Every structure is written in structure tokens, then in C-alpha cells.
């Protein structure tokens, strides 16, 4: 496994990029740091969606897992005083992964719009429950206490910033490894021709189920990171369908080209939204939507394809 990762160019660039970002984060104003944190945290969920998208599946309901991750952190904090980042992450990913495992048995039978809408339905069930049940915080949600690392509670948010970066880098490398295995290669194979995969002797349902669990666990981690970065969870910013929409938005904007793309997409989205809100507080969605339209028209393979194009041009001119 290490051999593959060590020889992989994407992995090297990912680690290098995240390392530089972690250092640079120390010298950034707080609002930039925050935006980067939110963007990266969302990028984790988008990474999972990208894995699904490569198979030709789009989930309009990943706010379900995003929300489960966030609420796992908040509830464990409220009832058991869990503040350690590792425990929080494991709880969030475990809970989201487990729900993904269960729902996967149903969802793996569906494709295209049916898959997308059924996932949306499941996420709205959770939203409905959270809003109605007082014990789960209702519409107000909960606040989340400061995150500690192995018993140490850092004062500045920079530590959490670095922790998020480490989590993102680790996830990106693991997904990159997964995509390099036979199972990952099946991603494209299933999109191309499910019938042939079955006749080669591999269960398409099983492969899709596996992908679905990966994407659920990543969305869970993403929600947990978001809860820790915001210090607050509530149904509307964690589980509503608009959250799923945002995740799909970023997935399309970033493009399926690379495991780094989701994080770039997440960060660009966060800054785009901040500036759009600054510019037009009542019509910021218009600016965000217009940007996505422009990207779909001019860069159908997403922002990543723009970087690739620049890369290739530089390579050929030098």
C-alpha cells in the first residue's frame, strides 16, 4: 500500500499542498482561516460524492450523513462531555458509516434520478425528526464545546485548522489509494457497463454499496469537522436539503478530475459565498448560481480541468 502511495504524484502534491497551507494558515486573518476551515471540511463530503459521481451516481441526500456526523459530535458532547477530536471523528464516521451501510442495501438497487431522489427522501426524514424532537435540539440545535486533542484544549482555532488539514490530507490519500485498486478501477467500469462487470463475476451492487459507505463516512467526518469549526449544530445548516444541494454544487463545480479538486472546490465556494454576500446580501444566490452556470458552460469538467489546462500549457511551453 505504501509503495503505491509513495510513487503517486497526486499524493505527493496533496501532501505538499496541505503542508504549505497549514504553515500559511498561521499568518492569515481569522476570517480567511475560518473560510478555509469550512471549505476544507465541506471538501471531505464532496470527496465522497466524487467517488459516487465517478460511477455515474449523484446523491441529493448526503446532508443526511453530514448531519449525522455533526449531531454525533453534539450529542456525545452534551450527554457524555466528549471533546476529544479523535473520539468525535470516530463516532461521527462510525455513525454515518453504519447508517450508510443500512441504507445502502436499499439504495444500491437504484440508479440515476431514482438514486438521487431516494437519498434526498432519507435525508429529509432525518431533518423532520430533528426539527420535531425536543431532545434532539429541535430547530435551535445545540452548541458544541471547544475541541481538545488528547486532553489538551488549545486556545486558538489554528490547532483545529491544522487538524482539519491533516484529516483532509489523510482522506485524500486514502481515496487516491482506493481509486488505484481494482475496486477503485471498477468505479469507471461500472459507469461504462454494469452488465459486463456482472458477467466478469463481480457484484455491481456490492461495489456500489462499498462506495456508498465510503462516501457516507466521509460526509460524517465532514459534518463533524463543521460542527467543531462552527461550535454549533442545527437542522437548517446541517441537514436541510439545501446542504445536500451545496455539496452537489461543489462537486459539479470542482469536477471529478482529482482527489484534490473537492477541497479546492470547497474553498472556492466558501469565498465565493462570502464575497457574493458582501456584494449583494439579498441576491447572493444569484451570483453563486451564475458562477456555476458559467463553470458548466465553459468548464464542463469543473475547476480542476482549468488547473489541468494551465498545467499542460506550462508544461508544453517550457
Amino acid at each position, binding site marked *: 500500500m505504501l509503495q*503505491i502511495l509513495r510513487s503517486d504524484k497526486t499524493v505527493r502534491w496533496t501532501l505538499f499542498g496541505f503542508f504549505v497551507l497549514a504553515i500559511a494558515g498561521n499568518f492569515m486573518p481569522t476570517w480567511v482561516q475560518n473560510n478555509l476551515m469550512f471549505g476544507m471540511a465541506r471538501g471531505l463530503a464532496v470527496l465522497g460524492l466524487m467517488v459516487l459521481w465517478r460511477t455515474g451516481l449523484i446523491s441529493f441526500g448526503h446532508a443526511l450523513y453530514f448531519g449525522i456526523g455533526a449531531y454525533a459530535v453534539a450529542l456525545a458532547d452534551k450527554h457524555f462531555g466528549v471533546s476529544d477530536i479523535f473520539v468525535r471523528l470516530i463516532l461521527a464516521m462510525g455513525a454515518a458509516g453504519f447508517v450508510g451501510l443500512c441504507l445502502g442495501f436499499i439504495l444500491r438497487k437504484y440508479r440515476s434520478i431514482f438514486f438521487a431522489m431516494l437519498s434526498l427522501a432519507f435525508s429529509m426524514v432525518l431533518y423532520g425528526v430533528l426539527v420535531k424532537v425536543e431532545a434532539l435540539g429541535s430547530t435551535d440545535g445545540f452548541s458544541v464545546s471547544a475541541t481538545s486533542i488528547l486532553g489538551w484544549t488549545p486556545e486558538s482555532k489554528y490547532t483545529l485548522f491544522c487538524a482539519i488539514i491533516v484529516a483532509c490530507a489523510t482522506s485524500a490519500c486514502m481515496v487516491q489509494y482506493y481509486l*488505484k*485498486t*481494482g*475496486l477503485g*478501477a*471498477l468505479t*469507471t*467500469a461500472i*459507469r*461504462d*457497463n454494469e*452488465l*459486463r*462487470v*456482472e*458477467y*466478469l*463475476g*463481480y*457484484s455491481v451492487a456490492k461495489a456500489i454499496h462499498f462506495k456508498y459507505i465510503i462516501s457516507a463516512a466521509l460526509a460524517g467526518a465532514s459534518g463533524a469537522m463543521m460542527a467543531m469549526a462552527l461550535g454549533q449544530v442545527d437542522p437548517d445548516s446541517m441537514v436541510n436539503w439545501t446542504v445536500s444541494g451545496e455539496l452537489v454544487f461543489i462537486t459539479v463545480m470542482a469536477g471529478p478530475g482529482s482527489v484534490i479538486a473537492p477541497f479546492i472546490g470547497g474553498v472556492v465556494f466558501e469565498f465565493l459565498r462570502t464575497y457574493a454576500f458582501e456584494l449583494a446580501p439579498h441576491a447572493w444566490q444569484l451570483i453563486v448560481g451564475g458562477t456555476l452556470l458559467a463553470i458548466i458552460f465553459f468548464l464542463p469538467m469543473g475547476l480542476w480541468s482549468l488547473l489541468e489546462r494551465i498545467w499542460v500549457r506550462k508544461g508544453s511551453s517550457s
Partner: protein
Amino acid sequence: MTASPALKVTDLCKSFSGITAANNINVEAADGDIIGIIGANGAGKTVFVNMITGYLKPTSGKIEFHGQDITGIEPRDATHVGVCRSFQVSQVFMTMTVRENLLIALAIAKDEGKAMLSSPRSPDLVAEADRMMQAYKIHDHADAVASTLSQGVRKLLDIAMAVVANPKVLLLDEPTSGVSVEEKFAIMDIVIAALKEKGVTVLFVEHDMEIVERYVDRVLAFYQGEVICDAPPAEALQDPKVIEYVIGHDHAPNPTPPADAASAAANGTESNA
């Protein structure tokens, strides 16, 4: 269990909401048999192939593979047992190269899928893929994306992918359809040579009687869901029922059949060429 035939089909029936597509089919095939399946369009050839490979569930009847009941199993289980197939329309991974197509097939076939957890680009899998490409004479196209291939090469890739799992029984659904006349014999030469070497039982659906005559040991003629003739080619192609319902009087083989008549028969048309 050495005495049991490689493939034994007993009283196989299939109907689609009242329309009978297969009616009491009884067939036996021994190890290494090469059998041609002929019949007009809609005679039930592909339904037969689909039932044996698990794509369609039979309404009644029994399919046995070396004595093991494989009636109505899933396609992937048929593959695991050793019954594989190719398709009338090539089913390959269109956005991948020929080598990548074979690497995925090999990775799945290896260790019941355990190889899926490591890279399919491991040296031994790549070497095996290269060997396959040599055997099927598609190594010139190793790095070409499947969607850019000619029909003939794509057919060969399709068949090569079906053979990767080391089948004991292989069903080929029209291996030469959509392929130019010059390519047809070349394809069959390559495929039959590669399969005979391994002693695979081959059943292939074919419209071209020249190909049937040249390559098969036995002919199964289908008409309206029934097997109307099961005999060696010399005998079967002279059978009055086969001439009546499958080949057509105009195209009945003479000592030296004209090439255009054979190809017209291949298209299943009744018109005079």
C-alpha cells in the same frame, strides 16, 4: 462425476406473457465440443444463451453443468461456476483502453476478487493481459480506448474478456455479426484456435453458414423456440426442415456455394442477392 456432460439442458422452456420463446429444449454438450446455433431472427437463439448464462430465468426445465444444477443462477455465479459468454453487441468498457479492460477482468477473476484490493497494474496481471492480447491478436491496440476500436477488434476484446475467467463452457452470441467479411474468418480462426487449446466447450450463435460449416462439430437449428435439428453440419445443412425454416431454399448449400448467397443468408434475408 466425469461421466456427466459439460452442459446438459433438459426440457427448458421460457415464455414471455404467453409468447413461447423456448419450448422443451434438450441439449447435451461434452467437453471440448464446438457447437453452432443457427436459426432465423426471433427463433430463440439468444434467449437460449441468456437462460444458460443467467440473464433470463427459465419458466421451467433444468440446466446442469457437469452434473451441478445451475438453473436460474445469477450471471456472476454462472461466471464463477465456469459458464461465460460474449455478446451480440460487444460489452466492453468504452472509456478504457484495451489493456485496462483486460486488467479489470483479470483482477476480478484472480483469487475470487481478493486482487481487487491491490492495484490491477501489478506486473503479473499486466503480463497476463499482454499474453491475452497476443493470443487474441489485439496487442497492436493495447493502448487504444475501446470506443475508437473497429467492430472486429472490439468483438475480439469482448470474447477475450469472457475467456479471462477460464470458462469450461463458453457461449458466444454472434461473434462475427457487424464484422466485415474479410475479418470474419480471421476472428473465428483466432478464437477457435485459442479455445481449442484449452478444451473449452463452445456454443456460438451464427448466421453465416460458411462459418458454421468450417468450424463446428455439431449444429443446433432453432425454429420458433424449438430445436428442429441437432446433427453434424454436413447432415444438418441438408436437412429439409433446416433448409425450409433456417437457410431458405434459395440459399441451400450447393457443392460450391456462391459467396454472396452465403452472406445474404448471414443477414437472415430471404431476398435474392
